[in-house]
């Protein structure tokens, strides 16, 4: 079964997205380090906030996309949905790792400890384990189709479980300061800090979108390659045709992965 190369139709669009990402992120980082005022209590350590908070958002956004892809796969058995889910899972794992690291770095000077057993931290750590389980299920399943099904199971249960875990840890004990941005009385931050946060939010979300598009393309290319290798193995082809098939695949894959 052949599919159209998704790289072909939207090249300029993706490139535009990439450029926009670079522009907004550059602005965001400039604002975080130069424009935003230094925090009265926390000093410069507070600046990690502009990276930490968007990372946390992306970790959970990525899990949401995994849920969408998993449900889509369960429904339609479309490989596209599975590619979406597994691409988002890899990015989610990356951002979850980063949010844990940046959080620890921030917690050390402010709370005087690397870690607190608090609802949001604990949930993020559990999310990290769920992502690992997600990759292991795939790797251990034996074949691709089964791996996709099992991963969809974990994607669905995991994503729905995350808010439950959060709530149960919260009832268990809690220490994290309430979110200051979404406070009921409106944002509690000075305008310049809020503006910086918003720009960083947009920049990192664009980065996620860009990486997700590129990652699904790479996954697409990988699937195509596996499929063609299989066809080449099964068809009684001569060595020469084999080499030609392999050559054209490599060409297309590098085309899809590079831009």
């Amino acid at each position: 079964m052949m599919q159209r190369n998704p790289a072909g139709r939207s090249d300029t669009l993706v490139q535009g997205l990439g450029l926009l990402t670079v522009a907004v992120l550059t602005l965001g980082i400039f604002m975080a380090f130069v424009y935003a005022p230094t925090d009265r209590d926390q000093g410069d350590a507070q600046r990690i906030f502009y990276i930490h908070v968007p990372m946390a958002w992306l970790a959970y956004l990525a899990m949401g996309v995994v849920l969408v892809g998993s449900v889509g796969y369960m429904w339609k058995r479309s490989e596209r949905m599975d590619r979406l889910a597994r691409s988002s899972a890899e990015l989610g794992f990356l951002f979850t790792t980063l949010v844990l690291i940046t959080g620890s770095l921030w917690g050390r000077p402010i709370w005087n400890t690397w870690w607190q057993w608090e609802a949001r931290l604990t949930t993020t750590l559990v999310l990290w384990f769920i992502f690992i389980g997600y990759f292991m299920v795939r790797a251990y399943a034996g074949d691709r189709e089964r791996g996709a099904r099992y991963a969809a199971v974990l994607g669905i249960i995991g994503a729905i479980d995350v808010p439950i875990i959060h709530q149960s840890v919260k009832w268990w004990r809690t220490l994290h300061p309430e979110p200051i941005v979404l406070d009921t009385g409106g944002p509690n931050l000075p305008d310049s800090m809020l503006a910086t946060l918003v720009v960083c939010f947009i920049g990192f979300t664009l980065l996620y979108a860009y990486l997700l598009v590129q990652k699904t393309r790479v996954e697409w290319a990988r699937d195509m390659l596996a499929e063609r290798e299989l066809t080449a193995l099964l068809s009684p082809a001569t060595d020469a045709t084999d080499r030609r098939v392999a050559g054209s695949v490599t060409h297309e894959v590098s085309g899809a992965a590079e831009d």
Partner: protein
Amino acid sequence: MRKVWSLVWKDLLVEFRGREFLGAMVVFALITIVTLNFAFDLIRGDREAPGAGGLWIAFLFAGMLGLGRSLAVERDRGTLEGLTLCPVDAGTIFLGKFISNVLFIVIVQAVSLPVFYALYNLPSLRPMVFLIALVGAVGFAGLGTLFSAVAASSRAREILMPLLLFPLAIPLVIGTVRATTLIFQGESGDAWPWFNLLAAFDVIFVTLSYVVFDLVLEE
């Protein structure tokens, strides 16, 4: 529903004739309870919380041991094909396995709780503890049955099962341990909200597992 019960009956019969894992589960739970004594000081001082935690660790590990086998055994013997060829849907197979797994865990608990009481003199024989034990077993068996099926046809299944199950079962662990601690501290009334919460978790986990089980079994 009659189909579900015949599946449960089949599992019980197999277990009764072969005595494969129920015995091992019970002994393992008891050994864990004894080992607790060396891990925490359960004789003096503040022992309600570690006692409750240890008790549930024992149930969790013993349950894992049994649940991990429940579908793996079917696959190894080739009876899973027979099961899927039965004129029942995946949901029915799930319910059958789920109910027999709940029964196995409850049997383990029924043996462990009196022993725990005798060894540590903590009030583990209260009706409220039994209730919490039951709702805990239901939720755990729900998720456990699903991931037992996932692990059964994977490589490294013994490792995969806890890796998938432990993170997802955290709400159940928190709920059961908190509730049991409160009961041990003589505040059974405060355990009711946790009971309600656990019941809600059970509904969510069992329903979800039931819905997605189809994805696991289909080959």
